[in-house]
């Protein structure tokens, strides 16, 4: 089945998409075609697909994961210069007179056999802690949302490059017959509903052919844009129309011999199949009550993070290659304690449920799950500090994400930060490293997945990136 198939004449890609499920083999052919036998052996793929739970706005590592018990005693004291080291700050706090330390208001405890530290805001995540690999030493270059989230999604801070999901669609093709290879799902945080916006480019295909762009699944109206037939035309009428359309297009093909016509006929057939397969995917009415219990009460409300987590599992079952959730609301410059409680209420239970659910269905072994935002938050307070109320500015120099499933060692913590969660003291991981590691889990050598554009062989990881080996199984 060649569904999202290559037919653009301008594509210089050196490979063909294989049949469904070809995965690494398709990649190997890409590598070998031009290079003969020397192109490099494909890596063994541990994961076939990715579910990336993007926490947009940047969650506070200090209040969720990165436990710093020593801070309580320093409440309100200025951040020592030896820690800040003159590093640049955003324009929102660079002019502050003081940088008072704001310890987390939340209690931390250790969980599971691995003894992972988590705050009381994440009781459900705590229960699956032994499945997770916490990377506490993530860092990025950007200090503002747009460049930072664009960096996470595309490997570059400025718009124009393909997103990670579109790279995978391009590199691995689709794993199914009638759904897109790359899907994006959006939800709004209840912690901070006025929060940072998202942009279509985050799942765009940049300079890759448009067909690799993520398809946004929506919770209002059609799940995929323009999926429903117009009022007055039912499925039977549509089928009949498509049959006649194919007949006429074939007559044209007989006349002009352009193979492109056959591709178009195939695309209409795929569109028709999507008209059935997508509603089938998004209809959760047959899920047992236990599913909704697992994912939490929000999972019955379309458009919530919880409902999207459930859809993500259903997509994984159906072979969608890259499933990315975006949850807004983590940008907590003020009133962080109050806002973060709402965000955790939205995300804690369903994120943990997804891991547990994938595991019980035997899907966690070949599904890579990633949870995290675009940067961290400062230990010093933005605005007024009281024991119960504080805000935190953007902090790119260290933050925490977690990964689980296909190819990743569960129950470990990688990397360390200083006593202020301000600087990394061990095993830094940058955004390119994370990308290289994700690609590695999917059996792709990040230096070899390239696309020639404007004379350059572009990579997701630019000219950087090291696979973070200690986190791999």
């Amino acid at each position, binding site marked *: 089945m060649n569904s999202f198939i290559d037919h653009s004449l301008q594509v210089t890609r050196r490979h063909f998409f294989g049949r469904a499920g070809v995965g690494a083999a398709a990649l190997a052919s890409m590598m070998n075609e031009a290079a003969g036998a020397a192109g490099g052996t494909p890596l063994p793929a541990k994961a076939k697909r990715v579910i990336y739970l993007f926490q947009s706005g940047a969650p506070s590592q200090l209040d969720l994961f990165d436990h710093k018990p020593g801070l309580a005693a320093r409440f309100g004291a200025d951040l020592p210069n030896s820690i800040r080291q003159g590093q640049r700050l955003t324009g929102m706090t660079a002019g502050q007179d003081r940088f008072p330390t704001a310890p987390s208001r939340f209690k931390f405890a250790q969980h599971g056999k691995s003894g992972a530290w988590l705050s009381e805001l994440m009781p459900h995540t705590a229960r699956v802690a032994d499945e997770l690999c916490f990377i506490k030493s993530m860092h990025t270059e950007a200090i503002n949302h747009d460049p930072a989230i664009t960096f996470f999604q595309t490997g570059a801070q400025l718009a124009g490059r393909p997103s990670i999901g579109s790279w995978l669609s391009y590199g691995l093709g689709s794993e199914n017959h009638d759904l897109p290879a790359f899907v994006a799902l959006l939800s709004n945080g209840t912690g901070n509903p006025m929060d940072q916006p998202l942009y279509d480019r985050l799942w765009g295909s940049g300079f890759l052919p*448009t067909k690799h762009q993520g398809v946004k699944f929506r919770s209002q109206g059609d799940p995929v844009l323009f999926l*429903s037939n*117009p009022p*007055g*035309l039912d499925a039977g009428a549509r089928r009949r129309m498509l049959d*006649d359309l194919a007949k006429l297009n074939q007559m044209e093909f007989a006349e002009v011999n352009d193979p*492109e016509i056959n591709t178009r006929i195939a695309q209409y057939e795929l569109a028709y199949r999507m008209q059935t397969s997508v509603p089938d995917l998004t209809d959760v009415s047959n899920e047992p009550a236990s599913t909704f219990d697992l994912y939490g009460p929000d999972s019955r409300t379309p458009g919530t993070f919880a409902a999207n987590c459930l859809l993500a599992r259903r997509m994984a079952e159906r072979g969608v290659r890259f499933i990315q959730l975006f949850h807004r609301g983590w940008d907590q410059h003020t009133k962080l304690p*109050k806002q973060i409680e709402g965000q955790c209420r939205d995300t804690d239970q369903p994120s943990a449920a997804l891991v547990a659910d994938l595991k019980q269905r035997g899907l966690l072994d070949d599904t890579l799950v990633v949870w995290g935002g675009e940067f961290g938050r400062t230990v010093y307070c933005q605005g007024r500090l009281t024991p119960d109320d504080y805000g935190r500015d953007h902090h790119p120099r260290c933050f925490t994400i977690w990964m689980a499933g296909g190819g990743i060692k569960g129950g470990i913590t990688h990397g360390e930060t200083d006593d202020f969660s301000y600087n990394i003291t061990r095993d830094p991981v940058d955004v390119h490293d994370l990308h290289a590691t994700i690609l590695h889990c999917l059996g792709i050598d990040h230096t070899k997945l390239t696309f020639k554009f404007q*004379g350059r062989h572009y990579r997701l990881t630019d000219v950087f990136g090291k696979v973070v080996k200690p986190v791999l199984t």
Partner: protein
Amino acid sequence: MNRLVLLFISIASLLRAQDRIEFNRDIRPILSDTCFLCHGPDKARRKADLRLDVESSAKAKHEDHFTIVPGKLDQSELIRRITTDDADDRMPPLDSGRQLTKQQIDLLKRWVAQGASWQAHWSFIAPQRPALPPVKDSAWPRNAVDHFILAKLEHEGLSPSPEADAAALQRRVTLDLTGLPPAPSETSEPYTALVDRLLASPRFGERMAIRWLDAARYADTSGYQSDGERWMWRWRDWVIDAYNANMPFDQFTIEQIGGDLLPSATLPQKIATAFNRNHRGNAEGGIVPEEFAVEYVVDRVDTTCTVWMGLTMGCARCHDHKYDPLTQNDFYSLFAFFNNVPEKGKAIKVGNSVPWIPAPTTAQQRELAQLNDRITKAEAHLTKLEPVIAAAQLAWEKTLVEEATPPWTVTRSLQKRFDKTEDFDGRRFVDGGDVGDFGYFDKFSFTAWIKPHAGKDGAILSRMVEDQSDSAFASIDEGYRVFLKDGRVQLHLTKRWLDDALRVETEEQVPPDQWRHITVVYDGSRVAAGVKIFINGQPQKLRVHLDQLNQTFATKQPFRIGAGGGAANRFQGQMRDVRVYTRALADEESTILAAAESVTDIAKLPVSKRTDLQATKIRACFLTEHAEPAQRAAQSELNTLREQRAVFIESIPTLMVMEEMPVPREAHILKRGVYDQPGERVFPGVPASLPPMPADAKVNRLGFAQWLVSEKNPLTARVAVNQLWQMLFGTGLVKTSEDFGSQGEPPSHPELLDWLATEFMRDWDVKRLMKLLVTSATYRQSSRITPAALGRDPENRLLSHAPRVRLSAEMVRDQALAAAGLLVENIGGPSVKPYQPSGLGKELSGTDLELDHGDKLFRRGLYTFWKRTSPHPTMTAFDAPGREMCCVRPSRTDTPLQALALMNDITFVEAARALAQRVMHEMQTREDRVCHAFRLALNRAPKAQELKVLLADYDLQLTRFRSDPASARSLITTGESLRDNLLDPAEHAALAALCGLILNLDEAVTKQ
């Protein structure tokens, strides 16, 4: 399977071993892609001091051997290294990610054996006009273009296709030159007459503008984060006008890059420079502005170099170019041309960022001139009346001594007045309720009498978060307030205290324990220059503490007198007569309000004893209320006209343009391209590997633009004609139209490209060139593909037949609307927001675009509002570039999302039912109607077997809709356009469904 094909290709080329190897065509691409990274222009990365991009280095001795010895395979180290089995010596190294194919190795060997002849990179040598190559079939060519195409076809053993039939050709050329399908009446006209008519049509400018807008990354929003609206459409309209006026391409170039620097630049010439302000602008809170100021300049360099020179200049931002002879120094020398704009790194969130100009349309300029004229006359009239008025006023004042006039003051737009004198002790305040609910686009004024205690600061009035617990999301200080600090009157408009606020204060202090009248006026302009403060009617000099307001400061807080921003900031002293006006008061009104005495009391004072305040007040009162009707009318007429003018000026569109700072910014090489790592200083200049600017040229943007279109520039004309070629033939003669460097593809027909470039440079006449191309025999061929052609030349680079290319996103839309008779053809104006599914904005950012209605639903695609972070989904589905960065080579893909959009997007469903209605009006029988609909979309009648399918489809639909009137009704009422209710609903619905099918045909969305 793929391997097999490759093998055949290799054999085919081996069989032609007698062919002469050509360096630029056969060898440079291999060396560039495989070797230049380490043996190329970038000195930092260069290994073994060997350059393979420079002949002298490639043929020189390195250590103990020569890299290339012409004619001697066994003495050439290059050949040994690429063929050796020794993994340590093998080139390219195994870990480089680059490999040579057997075919490439073979080519390199044959090249060395043939003498390793070298050529400079083709695009850096000025084009020479070649002679027309001889052809065997001398009857075929219609013009010079065809000689080059045919010569190559004959060389390859292929022959051209016969001419397309007249109807197909008419559709093709009409789409190509106007972006719209031919109207049914446009028939049987000689081809050249048709071409002339199309080139003269104003639709030509619209069609040409679309691709230029892609190149110029034109959009209606700023692109980063919250992606606020901006207004650049006056530039878009300039482009349309320029194409329609057939502005020569050299002038088109000069005006867009340096129009503002032309002697006595006209408004259109300034408008043209908006080209270089179309880049995105970042308004996100907390950014480091210097970082983005650099990005804007980089974007200008990248875009300008791509659009005019086909150079990937951006590669030299961080290091010397890896493939082309362009250094980092070259990059920053170009950077220096574009670095002198008086702009800010932080863009404004909604609207145009400085520098911008009012850019009235021609009609608006006329209207403004008329208004000014009327104001001058009204002023003159009032001046003439002055002696009469003065006398009448004196007479009237005398009557006041006997009978007091009622209290008079400025009451227009007075929203609320708090008369009472209030005492404030630093704790109490007055809750004024829901008054003064203003945001940053609102005009407003506050006035008050204040008597502050000595040494006490505090809020005079406010609508501001007062307590942290007031709001779940806002912080204290958010909102507006008038504040007294050290006796100085301040205005605070605050979204975020540190970096998203406006703060000004008076230089003068008000004395303690004395009554003073203050007026604070804000004109809604969002900048400090839009604030005025008066003390006792006197305009005050203001100090600006912060001028970075970027979001609205509106809050749900009540209006408070004596408080604002927390309990520590309460007023101490007395206040009375606090007023809120919902407009910006005129200066004179501030004066009037500061006169405390009643009009009657003023009248009692001798004229010579009156203060200016008092004199102004009593005159205003007289002229407004008591003068003769003719005198009152004269004054009110003038007031009305002035206000009309103010309102009119605000309605004039503005445009971000290029301006030059009086003293240029210093430019430096930025190490690794990073904004805060300046290196060596650089000065404006053009790349060293290209011809220099003339000695007498001005070294500024204007000089640079003139250099671009000078005779010596080897790139500009080639790049320009290649883009035009690509527009018509789908693929450029240089396929990589964005890259004419060594990593780009060499031209398929280098002599033709050079011939066209030299031809174009004669007069830079775009219409003449387009006519030349579309009247060529090459263009006029049938697009039918023969199996032989498909086998030999699957990409049709040799043009043995006309290309079949899917229509662009805009054309898909415009064609459907045109066929349906829905298209509303107005040229230019603000962008419009046609149908799109609701919720698209909401799910990204919380707010949806407000969609348009009526005519604005049916404008051409190029007028669709372009929101960068959420472009119209059907545009995106059909491969419209995202407009975030420059794009000169649009892609064409084929996806199920396109099928879904064409079948189900309301735009096309409505077009189908309108098309059905149209053919029902224009034709009577079922067969005529079906044929007519088909012809409107495809410009041809259906063939017999096609008609059979179409009619069967129609009959089936008709039966269905007859038995299901509700469905019929639903289908034919889709969309906002009116339906003719006299039409039989079932017939209309059946035909609408059939028209939907027709609009979805491959042929309908293909130019062939």
